């Protein structure tokens, strides 16, 4: 997906001005935040200890990522799978198209994969004459909505409401418009069933790769993942190299964290552990299994100050709890991943210079940091990205000038006292006797949407020193 992250301000403004989107965002927030809170409260043990355990598992993997990947490759290969490596999005597309062509594939069914968004895989498949069909309900809705990008990593069509989906289905399926959710999902099932039965290849993402068994784990609620991974004769898993966990026991620990953090469920409706190809005794399963393990910027984070980001297990809790995401939605962020984790990943994977607003588009409230199941210090990472921008001279000159003037003043107390004394008088002059300023020329961003309260009249330092003099 080509990044539009440089247009954050404009896209955020459009989202703010769209009442229907605003309503959809509000409903989404109430649902996700409430569900997680209940799940954490109902967890039988200490959820904070669980987060510590989750972090420890992820750190153990990432500290020795190469070792775990080699073990995974060995185990997966021993079970009949083929492990391929992709440096970037175009290599993902090359691998997948080559596999499809080798097996004479003309249609693929897809379960959710954010990596395929990183690679713009659907467009590449279509260009190669292979029809991709999204089968995750949210992804399917977006595909028939003229290939809209997802706005959330686990609820891709979260920005759409029931009415919009009803319109889309009626127009696409040429059927009477339905308004009840069960009727709509039934209609989707009927359409998708044909595709499940006729596709020659299934593509899935992977929530976890288990090193000791060479398995991929899919965590889903709709069951489409099972159809995609068992019905076609070829199964291709596309996932990031950081998704490894050492053992099944580690996976069990992370499974206590993931659904609770993501949807507030104790466990998702489906958890599939897929290992190797169909054996002689198996009733179903793919005859050919491929793993496309993707770098696309990940390996470069190992050992860097941003390594903690590789812990991410893609639950979406950080965006669900982010006041900025809740207000502008996912599309404003402009690339594959939105919210706090997206602001970090977009900067790191598409280039810091191509996402200048994203690290700054946060109040650093740390709501993301306290809900993250693997304790990624997201505000700290955002701040480090801001530092890298400053070091590389990527901030606008006006901002650099303002900061520089202010910080020089703040280091010179006498000058600072004079400047603030004058500043307060200027603000009071602007307020002209009222308790507020409606238009503030030095900070128009502030007063566009709210007033600026007037200062009390004199600085604390002025008042304090005159009081001290009176005392003396």
């Amino acid at each position, binding site marked *: 997906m080509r990044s539009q992250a440089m247009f954050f301000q404009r896209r*955020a403004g459009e989202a*703010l001005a769209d009442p229907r989107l605003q309503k959809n965002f509000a409903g989404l927030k109430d649902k996700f935040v409430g569900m997680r809170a209940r799940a954490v409260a109902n967890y039988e043990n200490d959820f904070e200890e669980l987060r510590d355990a989750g972090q420890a598992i992820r750190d153990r993997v990432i500290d020795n990522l190469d070792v775990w990947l080699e073990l995974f490759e060995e185990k997966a290969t021993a079970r009949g799978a083929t492990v391929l490596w992709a440096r970037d999005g175009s290599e993902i597309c090359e691998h997948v198209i080559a596999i499809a062509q080798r097996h004479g594939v003309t249609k693929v069914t897809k379960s959710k994969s954010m990596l395929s968004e990183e690679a713009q895989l659907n467009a590449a498949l279509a260009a190669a004459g292979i029809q991709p069909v999204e089968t995750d309900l949210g992804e399917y809705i977006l595909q028939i909505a003229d290939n809209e990008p997802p706005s959330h990593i686990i609820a891709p069509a979260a920005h759409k409401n029931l009415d919009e989906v009803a319109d889309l289905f009626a127009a696409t399926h040429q059927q009477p418009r339905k308004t009840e959710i069960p009727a709509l999902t039934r209609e989707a099932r009927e359409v998708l069933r044909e595709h499940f039965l006729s596709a020659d290849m299934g593509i899935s993402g992977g929530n976890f790769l288990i090193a000791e068994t060479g398995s991929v784990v899919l965590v889903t609620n709709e069951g489409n993942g099972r159809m995609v991974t068992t019905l076609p004769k070829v199964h291709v898993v596309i996932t990031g190299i950081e998704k490894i966990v050492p053992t099944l026991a580690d996976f069990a620990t992370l499974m206590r964290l993931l659904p609770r953090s993501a949807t507030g469920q104790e466990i998702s409706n489906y958890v599939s552990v897929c290992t190797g190809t169909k054996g002689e005794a198996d009733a179903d399963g793919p005859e050919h299994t491929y793993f496309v393990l993707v770098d696309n910027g990940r390996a470069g984070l190992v050992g860097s100050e941003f390594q903690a980001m590789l812990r991410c297990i893609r639950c979406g809790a950080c965006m669900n709890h982010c006041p900025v995401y809740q207000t502008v939605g996912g599309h404003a962020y402009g690339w594959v991943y939105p919210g706090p984790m997206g602001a970090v990943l977009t900067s790191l994977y598409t280039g810091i210079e191509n996402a200048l607003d994203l690290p700054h588009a946060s*109040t650093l409230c740390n*709501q993301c940091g306290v809900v993250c199941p693997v304790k990624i210090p997201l505000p700290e990472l955002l701040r480090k990205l801001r530092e890298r921008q400053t070091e590389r001279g990527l901030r606008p000159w006006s901002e650099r000038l303002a900061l520089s003037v202010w910080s020089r003043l703040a280091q010179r107390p006498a000058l600072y006292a004079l400047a603030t004394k004058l500043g307060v008088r200027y603000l009071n002059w602007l307020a002209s006797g009222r308790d507020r300023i409606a238009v503030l020329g030095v900070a128009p961003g502030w007063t566009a*949407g709210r007033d600026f309260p007037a200062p009390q009249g004199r600085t604390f*330092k002025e008042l304090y020193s005159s009081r001290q003099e009176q005392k003396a």
Partner: protein
Amino acid sequence: MRSFRHPVCFLHCGILPFHNAKLMRVALFVTCLVDLMRPSVGFAAIRLLEAAGCEVVVPETQTCCGQPAFNSGDRRAALALAKKTIAECEGFDYVVAPSGSCADQIRSEYPGLFVDEPEWRRRAKALAARTWELTSFLADVLKVDTVPGEFAGSVTYHDSCTGLRSLGIKQQPRRLLGLVAGLKLKEMPESEACCGFGGTFAVKFGDISAAIAEKKCINAQAAQAGAVVGGDLGCLLNIEGKLRRMGDETTRVLHVAEVLAGVLPNPDGKAG
């Protein structure tokens, strides 16, 4: 006699090395926003600390803790201001700020700034260990059971993000407000939600910031209290500015120190 060990501070702050050993010597870190916008908060803090038996000193040369530079990615400026603040404030038993955000900058961020300067790092750590946000200092360190303020009416409390999530300030201001004669606390929905201030965020992304502030204001109004009270002036300026723009002329917006000390600004906003 820390002042002897740190002659720089001794000179800068003009503190006498001989003082009443019985009194706790507390440096008030006023914060740049209070200095500029709302001096009544600083005087309220002095009153509260003195009422609790502290000797309060206001280091004269203090300006800003450096958080705006730190959060904007200007580490060099943040470092320079951290050194300045450390030198000014390290000669005291405690440093207290009427802001969770500024107190946290000193407590949680200063030590990490000094990567290659072990001596500064030591001094930063020592200062961090003695630095407190005002309500947590009153409630957790001094364990006060009376406050000077009286307040006829109801208030609702906004939990500022940094104080809440980094310093664990939640019950302290509520317990202290419970000591104010006449005051009734009414909780708002989502009191822990960010108000959208975020420092320079409020200016850089004014439209998003104001939209988040609107949600906060709607929640605050739902409490049907006479005043919104909080512990960080940045949030309060944001909330007050949005309430007024929304046409709410009656809900007062007050710093918790003002309410606890009974040092309220006049209704026209001027220092009382």
